[in-house]
C-alpha cells in the first residue's frame, strides 16, 4: 500500500506539470487536442490522488506503524473513526488532503466547462495545475505522508486527546473545502488575465465558486469556534489566535468579493477592484495555510511545525508578483463601463462595505504578523492581543451591520429622500424601540445597545423586503405560503442572501451578548457545599472515579438549582489518558455544558484535592446558542442562493443598467 501511495503522488506531480504545459501550449497554438489531453490529465491526477489517499487511510486504519505519519498520529487504543480522521490530524496528511480537494475541484471545473469558453478555460486549468504542482511537490519531495521509519515501533504516539472530538473531526475538513475553494475563483481571475478574456465569463464562474468557498469558510470558522468552546475549556470560542485569524482573513476578503462581484455583474463597474480582491483573497488563503502549517507565529493550537515555511514564502512571493504583474499588464482592458452618480446609492454602500471588510482584513493581518514585524523593525518582539483586535474590529463590524441593513434597500445610482423614508422609516423605528426596551430592562452597555439596535434595524429591512415581495404575489391571488415560496425560488440569489444576513444577525446577537454579559465565579467546595451565581445554585455532591480502556476519569457530581428548584445534574470531568510513555499530552479537562437559548452554563472541574473537595469554575455565557443557530440559518441561506435554477436561460441573462436608462427599477435580474 505504501509504495502504491508514494508512486501515485509522484505520478500526480509529473502529470500536473504536463497539464500546465499542455494547456498553455494548446491554447497558444490553438491545438485543442492538447487542451483536451490536459483536461484528461487533470482527471488522471484526481484518480491518482484518490488512490494515494486510500492508501494512507488503509495504513491508518490498519495501524501500519512502519509509516512515520501513522506512528505519530495513531495508537492501538484509538477508535476507528479517529484513525480515519487522523488523515488530517498531522501535517503531511493535511497537505495530501489539500491536494485531493484541489484535484476534485479541478476535475469539476474541467467537466463543467468542457467545450465552453475555449480561450479562457486552458489558462484557468493552467493556474489550477500550477497550484497543484506546488502542493503535490511538497508532499512528494518534502513532507511525504508515506515516509517510512527506520524501524517499526510497537505502539504509535497516539492522537492528541483534544483532537478526539466530533467537531475536530469535521472542522478542518470544512475549512479545507473553503481554503482550497478560494483557489478556483482565483484561477478564473488569472485565466481571464492571461487569456485577455476579461468579460463577464470569469466573474460568472468565480462568483459561484467564491460563494461556495465562502460558505465552507464560514461553517468551518463556526465549527472551529464551537470546538474551541467545548474542548479548550476557557469558556470562550474565539481568542484572536493566529490560527483562527488565518481562517478569518480570507473569509473577510471573500466576503468583500462576493459582494463586489454583484456590482460588476449588474453595472460593469469595479473590474480592477474585483481582480485585486480575488488575488488578495487567494493570497490570504495560502498565507493562512502557511501560518497554520509552518508554526512561524507561535500559537496555542499550532498543531504542526516544520521547515516547509520558506517554501511557502517563496510560493506566496511568486503568486503575488506574478498576479499583480499580469494585473498591471492588463490594466487598460479593465475599464469601467459606468460611473458613480451619488454617494447615497447602492453602489456606494457596496464600496463602503468593501473598504471596511478589507480594512478589517488588513487590521487582523497586521495584528497577526505584528510580533514578526516588530522584531524585524525594532529588534523587540511585541505582541498585540485580543484587546487590539476587539478595539479595531468592533467599530468596523458595527458600521458593517448598519450597511447590511442599508445595502439591500437603497436605490441604485441615486437615492431620493422619498426613497429613503419609504424604505427605512420602519426599520429605524424598530431599532429605536429596541434601544428603549433594552434600556428599560436595565441594559446600559453602549456597544451592546448599538449592536442590538442595528440588528433590529437589519431584521426590519429584511422583513420589509420579504413582506413587500410576498404581498405583491398575494395580490395576484396566490396564498401566503405559495407566494413566499415562489418569491424565494424565483429570485434565489437575492432572497438567499437575505437569509444569510439574518443568520449573521443571529450570530452578532450571540457574540454581543456572550462577550458583554459574562458572569464568572470560582469556588472550592467540600462535599455538600453550594455556590451561587445569578439565579443559579450548584451543590457539590462529591467526586467519582472510573476507568475505561483509554483513560482514568474523575467526575465531579453537581446538582443544579434554578430559583431554588432542582433542574439538572451536571458532571464535569478531568481525564488522564493512559499510554503515558507514548503521549506528550495526556490530560484533558472535559467541560460540562448546559446549553439553552437563554444562556450557557459552562462548568469546569479546575482541580480536585485529596480531602475530596473540588475547585469548580462556573461561567454563565448568555445567548451563545444563537451563534450556532445563526450558523445553521447562514448555511440554509447559502444553499438557497446556490441552488441550481431550473430555468437556466433566465439566470444567465444579466440586466445591466447603463447611464441611459433613467428610471430603471430597483429589482434586477
Amino acid at each position, binding site marked *: 500500500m505504501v509504495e502504491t501511495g508514494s508512486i501515485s503522488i509522484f505520478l500526480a506531480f509529473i502529470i500536473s506539470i504536463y497539464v500546465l504545459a499542455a494547456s498553455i501550449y494548446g491554447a497558444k497554438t490553438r491545438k485543442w487536442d492538447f487542451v483536451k489531453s490536459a483536461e484528461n490529465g487533470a482527471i488522471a491526477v484526481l484518480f491518482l490522488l484518490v488512490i494515494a489517499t486510500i492508501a494512507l487511510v488503509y495504513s491508518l486504519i490498519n495501524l501500519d506503524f512502519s509509516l*512515520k505519519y501513522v506512528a505519530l498520529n495513531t495508537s492501538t487504543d484509538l477508535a476507528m473513526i479517529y484513525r480515519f480522521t487522523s488523515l488530517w490530524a498531522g501535517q503531511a496528511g493535511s497537505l495530501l488532503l489539500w491536494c485531493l480537494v484541489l484535484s476534485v475541484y479541478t476535475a469539476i471545473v474541467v467537466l463543467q466547462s468542457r467545450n465552453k469558453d475555449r480561450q479562457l478555460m486552458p489558462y484557468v486549468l493552467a493556474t489550477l495545475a500550477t497550484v497543484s504542482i506546488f502542493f503535490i511537490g511538497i508532499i512528494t519531495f518534502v513532507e511525504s505522508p508515506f515516509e517510512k*521509519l527506520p524501524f517499526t515501533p510497537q505502539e504509535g504516539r497516539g492522537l492528541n486527546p483534544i483532537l478526539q472530538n466530533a467537531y475536530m473531526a469535521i472542522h478542518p475538513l470544512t475549512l479545507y473545502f473553503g481554503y482550497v475553494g478560494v483557489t478556483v475563483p482565483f484561477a478564473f481571475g488569472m485565466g481571464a488575465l492571461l487569456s485577455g478574456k476579461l468579460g463577464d465569463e470569469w466573474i460568472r464562474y468565480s462568483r459561484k465558486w467564491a460563494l461556495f468557498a465562502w460558505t465552507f469558510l464560514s461553517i468551518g470558522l463556526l465549527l472551529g469556534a464551537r470546538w474551541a468552546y467545548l474542548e479548550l475549556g476557557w469558556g470562550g470560542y474565539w481568542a484572536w489566535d493566529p490560527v483562527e485569524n488565518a481562517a478569518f482573513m480570507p473569509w473577510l476578503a471573500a466576503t468583500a468579493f462576493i459582494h463586489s462581484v454583484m456590482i460588476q455583474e449588474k453595472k460593469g463597474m469595479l473590474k480592477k477592484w474585483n481582480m485585486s480582491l480575488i488575488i488578495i483573497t487567494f493570497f490570504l488563503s495560502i498565507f493562512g495555510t502557511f501560518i497554520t502549517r509552518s508554526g512561524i507565529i507561535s500559537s496555542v493550537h499550532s498543531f504542526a*511545525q516544520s521547515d516547509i515555511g520558506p517554501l511557502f514564502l517563496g510560493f506566496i512571493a511568486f503568486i503575488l508578483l506574478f498576479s499583480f504583474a499580469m494585473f498591471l499588464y492588463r490594466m487598460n482592458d479593465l475599464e469601467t463601463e459606468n460611473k458613480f452618480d451619488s454617494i447615497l446609492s447602492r453602489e456606494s454602500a457596496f464600496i463602503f462595505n468593501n473598504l471596511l471588510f478589507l480594512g478589517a482584513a488588513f487590521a487582523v493581518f497586521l495584528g497577526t504578523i505584528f510580533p514578526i514585524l516588530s522584531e524585524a523593525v525594532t529588534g523587540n518582539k511585541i505582541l498585540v*492581543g485580543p*484587546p487590539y483586535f476587539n*478595539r479595531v474590529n468592533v467599530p468596523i463590524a458595527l458600521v458593517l451591520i448598519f450597511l447590511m441593513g442599508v445595502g439591500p434597500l437603497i436605490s441604485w445610482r441615486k437615492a431620493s429622500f422619498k426613497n429613503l423614508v419609504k424604505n427605512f422609516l420602519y426599520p429605524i423605528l424598530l431599532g429605536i424601540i429596541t434601544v428603549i426596551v433594552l434600556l428599560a430592562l436595565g441594559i446600559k452597555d453602549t456597544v451592546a445597545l448599538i449592536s442590538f439596535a442595528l440588528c433590529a434595524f437589519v431584521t426590519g429591512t429584511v422583513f420589509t423586503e420579504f413582506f413587500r415581495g410576498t404581498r405583491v404575489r398575494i395580490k395576484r391571488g396566490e396564498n401566503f405560503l405559495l407566494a413566499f415560496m415562489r418569491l424565494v425560488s424565483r429570485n434565489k440569489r437575492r432572497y438567499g442572501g437575505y437569509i444569510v444576513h439574518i443568520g449573521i444577525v443571529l450570530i452578532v446577537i450571540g457574540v454581543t451578548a456572550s462577550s458583554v454579559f459574562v458572569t464568572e465565579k470560582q469556588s472550592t467546595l467540600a462535599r455538600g457545599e453550594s455556590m451561587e451565581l445569578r439565579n443559579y445554585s450548584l451543590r457539590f455532591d462529591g467526586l467519582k472515579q472510573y476507568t475505561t480502556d483509554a483513560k482514568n476519569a474523575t467526575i465531579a457530581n453537581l446538582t443544579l438549582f434554578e430559583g431554588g428548584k432542582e433542574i439538572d445534574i451536571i458532571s464535569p470531568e478531568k481525564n488522564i489518558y493512559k499510554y503515558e*510513555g507514548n503521549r506528550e499530552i495526556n490530560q484533558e479537562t472535559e467541560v460540562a455544558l448546559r446549553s439553552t437559548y437563554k444562556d450557557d452554563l459552562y462548568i469546569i472541574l479546575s482541580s480536585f484535592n485529596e480531602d475530596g473537595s473540588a475547585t469548580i*469554575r462556573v461561567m454563565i455565557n448568555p445567548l451563545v446558542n444563537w451563534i450556532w443557530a445563526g450558523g445553521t440559518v447562514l448555511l440554509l441561506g447559502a444553499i438557497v442562493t446556490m441552488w441550481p435554477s431550473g430555468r437556466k436561460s433566465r439566470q444567465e441573462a444579466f440586466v445591466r443598467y447603463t447611464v441611459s436608462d433613467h428610471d430603471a427599477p430597483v429589482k434586477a435580474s
Partner: protein
Amino acid sequence: MLKGKLKFIIAISVIALTVSYLVYGGVKDTMVYYLTVEELKAQVPTVYDSRVRVSGTVVPGTIIKDTDGSIVFQITDGAQMVDVAYEGIIPDIFADDVEAVVEGVYAKNNVFEADILLAKCPTKYESTDSLYENKETSY
C-alpha cells in the same frame, strides 16, 4: 460631477483614516513586550509594573497548587529563574518541563503576577523521539 467625486474621495478618506486611527490606537494601547527570562531580569528596575509577556520552561518540582485553584511555579531560560503566581484556568498540558508563556506584571517583590497562562508541548509536535523509546520492544 466634480462635487460628486469629491464627496466620494472625502468619504473614502474618512473610512481609511478611521481604520488607520483604530489600528494605531489599538497597537499603542494594547501592545505587550514579549521577553525571555533573561531579558526580563536585564530590564529589572524599569520593567516593574508594566505589562509584559514572558516565556520559559517550567522548573520541575516548583509547581505548587493551592486548594483555591491558584498556583505558583518557576520558569527558567536555563540560567535564571522567575517566580510566577497565577490564578485562573490551568491548561491541560501544563506540567513540569513544558514551555510556559505567562502574561502579567512583574511586581516589585520579584514575583510575576500572571493573569494569562499558556503552555506548549516540550518537544516539536512532529518529533519522533517518543517512538524511539519503544524501539527495544519491537521485534
